[in-house]
């Protein structure tokens, strides 16, 4: 019997109240008639089979009833319903959008089977601050041979090749893979096949796999794509496969893949660092164990090759975690901010529902008097708030869907994931949980409170006068919380805005206005010889300079910010030796003479480079001030010598520092060398290829002309990466800007919601104190006093909220200190402005209720009693 009573608890309480005794009696009668154990068992089974569906149906009946009631209520006061749904939508939308991006970048497993076992291996040259140096092929092959922690190890490297044989020549970004890489990633081709070991032998015929985007775009989804021939840097390749659209390794920008085809001589130089190495841990082997084993392996190689491997260890990183700390903090900050918005919108909803519950007190009291149980009323109100939360959730997910693509700048382009986060099942699940939680939280408090205050006396009271002091305290507490959280958001935004302003004032070292840039990646081996390159540069530059409106033009190895590496060791007689090369490095650029004029890099002393600095004349260099200060402090650097890029160079000029590594990072000192002072076939990677043109012409006028000039100099020469120098600089802080806009939006939502919350609280208070206000006016209170009465309350709440918010802000600001570009996390000016903003928001929220209080007509207010 006890068990049956327990079973009956599955029915809704409203049903139980009526029929529990009856059901129990029927059960008792039947069990009295069923004496054999078998019959009793049957009765039990029958009862369970009966109760489960009946209870469910009874719940469903109630739910339908409640929903109908809800719909009627919403239709009667659509303003309330719409406000509540929108408030919920903003909270859920902000959190879903922020969580989608964070999940996409930081949490979701990479799209490869057993992705958590994939690691990247780097040469660890800790003495020189490089813990992630690209391995040389020789070290890679030794690691592979000597280690046992991995079920596979594969290598890849970046390619930038000119593709011909399909329309105009085009510079495409590609990768060369060893043949074991794709199987290790579990990747299958959409069409054709992946590389076989035979494709990966030295001298094997060229094979290429296309990305889905490349196949769709450049090849018009040609169904006969397999076995088609194309040329990459003038060499023939056969298309053997097309990868599916989801395959984006190592980055979304990569369009084609070729086989690595190591040649025996590739393994000769252990300092030829250009590979990326990925490995898969054997099942059961931890990263720590692999790290320990690789330590032993590098020790062995150190003994075997003391000269080259003296400082070379091995870094083992999870594939997922190769992400700058800054992107991580940015995403977490955004997530934190979105949670603030969610909490504020929940509190706001709780407040909305609470004041509504108070207004509906009479109705609820009436229903209670008519026999509706307390549980029934709580249930009804919970259904109402859950309905609001669900509708809000659906709208919110829609908002998030629209917002996520706007956040794509926060997705680092260096990960093998899509550049736009998708709202997938995981995210939906979390959002849905948020919605339900929100509904329960902001539904339960008002429901319980309202039903707890259900005294039959409610019927006799005048509407809106009974505001229990504990109810007001709860609501005031919620408002204080909202003010505090929105202050945190405003303040974080303020600090990040100041950081951005500060960065915008950072001098990049060059003037970016009116400079058009592009890359003309010179096809090798065609341009291996310096004389051939010189002919190309001379003919292109001469004709561009003749174009009216062009001020100057130059080629450089790499433009600043676009390419932040390109570092070479510096050796200075008597100052350092080859062994600690890692400590002395500078960014190396070969440039044509007009480079400094084109980028407007100021000359500090000596001279810039000249056309006469040719292969036969003295090898010279122009260095940055930072270079001069590092090596010849308090001495005249002009005329000094240093060994750099395979030759002895003489300093002939000092120029201003350039922020090669972007505006937020320290850059190595810079060295500029004349484009002709390099051996044939040497340092090909550094051969000038980035063209910069300073002109007063519009891009639309200039670009066709430049294209024409380059095509005339070399019809096979592709042009890529066309952008202005301004765009390059802007791109450098695009993630920051995006984050700030997102945070700013969150802060704005928070302020609005909080102001609405304050307004709601005060409007309610004024409404319920109309009579008191009337009496006070009748006995001669001045408008100022009435104003004080109303505003006093909200200003007190604002002050408490601001105090709490400032304390929270310090903690929040400390956690994003890495993003503040040197602005103090306790910057007094920002705190003052943020506090003032919160205060102004509180005043704005109380403005309308205060006006209403002043308009109270004492006669009518008193007579109404």
């Amino acid at each position, binding site marked *: 019997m006890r068990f049956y009573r327990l079973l009956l608890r599955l029915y809704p309480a409203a*049903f139980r109240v*009526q*029929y529990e*005794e*009856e*059901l129990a*009696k*029927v*059960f008792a*009668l*039947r069990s009295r008639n069923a004496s054999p154990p078998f019959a009793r068992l049957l009765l039990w089974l*029958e*009862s369970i*089979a*009966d*109760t489960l*569906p*009946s*209870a469910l*149906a*009874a719940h469903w*009946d109630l739910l339908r009833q409640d929903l109908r009631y809800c719909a009627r209520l919403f239709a009667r006061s659509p303003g309330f319903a719409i406000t509540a749904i929108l408030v919920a939508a903003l909270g859920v939308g902000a959190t879903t959008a922020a969580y989608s991006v964070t999940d996409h970048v930081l949490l979701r497993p990479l799209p490869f089977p057993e992705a958590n076992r994939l690691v990247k291996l780097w040469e660890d040259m800790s003495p020189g601050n490089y813990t992630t140096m690209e391995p040389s092929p020789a070290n890679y092959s030794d690691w592979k041979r000597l280690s046992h922690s991995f079920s596979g190890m594969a290598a890849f490297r970046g390619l930038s090749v000119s593709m011909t044989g399909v329309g105009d020549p085009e510079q495409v970004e590609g990768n060369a893979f060893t043949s074991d890489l794709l199987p290790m990633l579990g990747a299958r081709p959409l069409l054709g096949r992946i590389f076989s070991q035979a494709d990966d032998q030295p001298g094997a015929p060229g094979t290429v796999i296309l990305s889905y985007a490349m196949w769709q775009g450049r090849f018009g989804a040609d169904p006969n794509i397999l076995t088609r021939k194309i040329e990459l840097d003038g060499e023939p390749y056969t298309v053997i496969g097309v990868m599916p659209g989801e395959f984006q390794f190592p980055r979304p920008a990569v369009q084609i893949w070729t086989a690595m085809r190591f040649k025996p001589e590739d393994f000769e130089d252990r300092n030829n660092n250009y590979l990326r190495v990925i490995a898969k841990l054997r099942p059961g082997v931890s990263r720590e164990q692999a790290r320990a084993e690789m330590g032993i392996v590098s020790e062995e190689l150190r003994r075997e090759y003391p000269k080259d491997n003296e400082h070379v260890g091995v870094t083992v990183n999870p594939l997922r975690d190769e992400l700058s700390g800054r992107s991580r903090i940015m995403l977490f900050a955004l997530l934190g901010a979105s949670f603030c918005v969610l909490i504020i919108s929940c509190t706001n909803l709780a407040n909305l529902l609470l004041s509504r519950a108070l207004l509906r007190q009479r109705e609820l009291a009436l229903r209670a008097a008519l026999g509706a149980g307390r549980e029934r009323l709580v249930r009804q109100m919970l259904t109402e708030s859950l309905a609001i939360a669900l509708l809000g959730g659906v709208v919110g997910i829609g908002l998030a869907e629209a917002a996520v693509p706007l956040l794509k700048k926060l997705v680092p382009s260096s990960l093998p994931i899509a550049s736009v986060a998708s709202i997938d099942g995981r995210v939906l699940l979390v959002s849905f949980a948020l919605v339900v939680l929100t509904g329960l939280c902001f539904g339960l408090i008002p429901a319980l409170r309202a039903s707890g205050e259900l005294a039959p006396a409610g019927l006799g009271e005048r509407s809106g006068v009974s505001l229990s002091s504990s109810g007001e305290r709860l609501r005031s507490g919620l408002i204080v919380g909202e003010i505090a959280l929105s202050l945190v958001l405003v303040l974080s935004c303020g600090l990040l805005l100041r950081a951005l302003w500060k960065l915008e004032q950072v001098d990049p070292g060059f003037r970016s206005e009116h400079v058009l840039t592009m890359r003309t990646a010179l096809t090798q081996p065609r341009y291996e010889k310096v004389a051939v390159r010189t002919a190309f540069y001379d003919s292109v530059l001469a004709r561009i300079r003749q174009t009216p409106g062009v001020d100057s033009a130059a080629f450089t190895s790499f433009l600043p910010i676009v390419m932040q590496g390109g570092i070479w060791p510096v050796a200075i007689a008597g100052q350092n030796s080859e062994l600690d090369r890692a400590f002395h490095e500078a960014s190396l650029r070969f440039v044509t003479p007009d480079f400094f004029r084109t980028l407007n890099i100021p000359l500090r002393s000596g001279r810039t480079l000249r056309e006469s600095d040719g292969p036969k004349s003295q090898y010279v260099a122009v260095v940055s001030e930072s270079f001069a200060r590092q090596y010849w402090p308090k001495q005249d650097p002009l005329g000094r010598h240093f060994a750099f890029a395979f030759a002895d160079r003489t300093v002939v000029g000092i120029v201003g520092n350039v922020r090669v590594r972007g505006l937020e990072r320290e850059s190595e000192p810079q060295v500029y060398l004349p484009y002709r002072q390099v051996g044939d076939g040497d340092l090909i990677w550094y051969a000038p290829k980035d063209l910069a043109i300073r002109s007063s012409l519009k891009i639309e006028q200039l670009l066709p002309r430049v294209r024409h000039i380059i095509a005339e100099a070399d019809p096979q020469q592709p042009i890529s990466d066309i952008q202005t120098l301004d765009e390059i600089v802007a791109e450098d802080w695009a993630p920051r800007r995006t984050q700030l806009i997102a945070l700013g939006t969150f802060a704005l939502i928070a302020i609005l919601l909080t102001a609405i919350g304050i307004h709601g609280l005060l409007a309610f208070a004024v409404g319920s104190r109309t009579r008191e206000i009337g009496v006070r006016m009748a006995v001669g209170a001045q408008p100022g006093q009435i104003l004080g009465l109303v505003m006093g309350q909200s200003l007190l709440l604002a002050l408490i909220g601001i105090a709490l918010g400032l304390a929270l802000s310090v903690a929040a600001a400390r956690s994003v200190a890495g993003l503040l570009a040197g602005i103090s996390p306790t910057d007094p000016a920002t705190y003052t402005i943020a506090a003032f903003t919160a205060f102004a928001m509180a005043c704005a929220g109380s403005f309308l209720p205060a006006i209403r209080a002043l308009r109270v007509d004492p006669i009518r207010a008193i007579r109404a009693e």
Partner: protein
Amino acid sequence: MPDPHELLPLPSATFHILLSLADQDRHGYAIIQDVAARTAGKLRLSAGTLYRSIQRMLEQGLIEETEERPDPELDDERRRYYRLTRFGERVARAETARFAELVKMARASGFAPGKA
């Protein structure tokens, strides 16, 4: 009074409960037994089905709870008895008429029992 036809066709449990209450007021368990007897054991209402039907029928005004105890010997203070309302009677009649109409149509199509 609402139109009885709006509730048709009745769920079979509802119709049987109406039939069982036609001659006398009964409590829940008696309804179950009566329906079983009337259908020769073919229809056994489960307790859950019965009380959910009763709840809905009360809301719809087909039946009402009664204060009188028609069976003083078996009377149990706490037991609830149900009685057919006038509206319930009309609904039962309307449903019966609907069935009769159906049977007539079925006969015309040659489905009636006893005929080929």
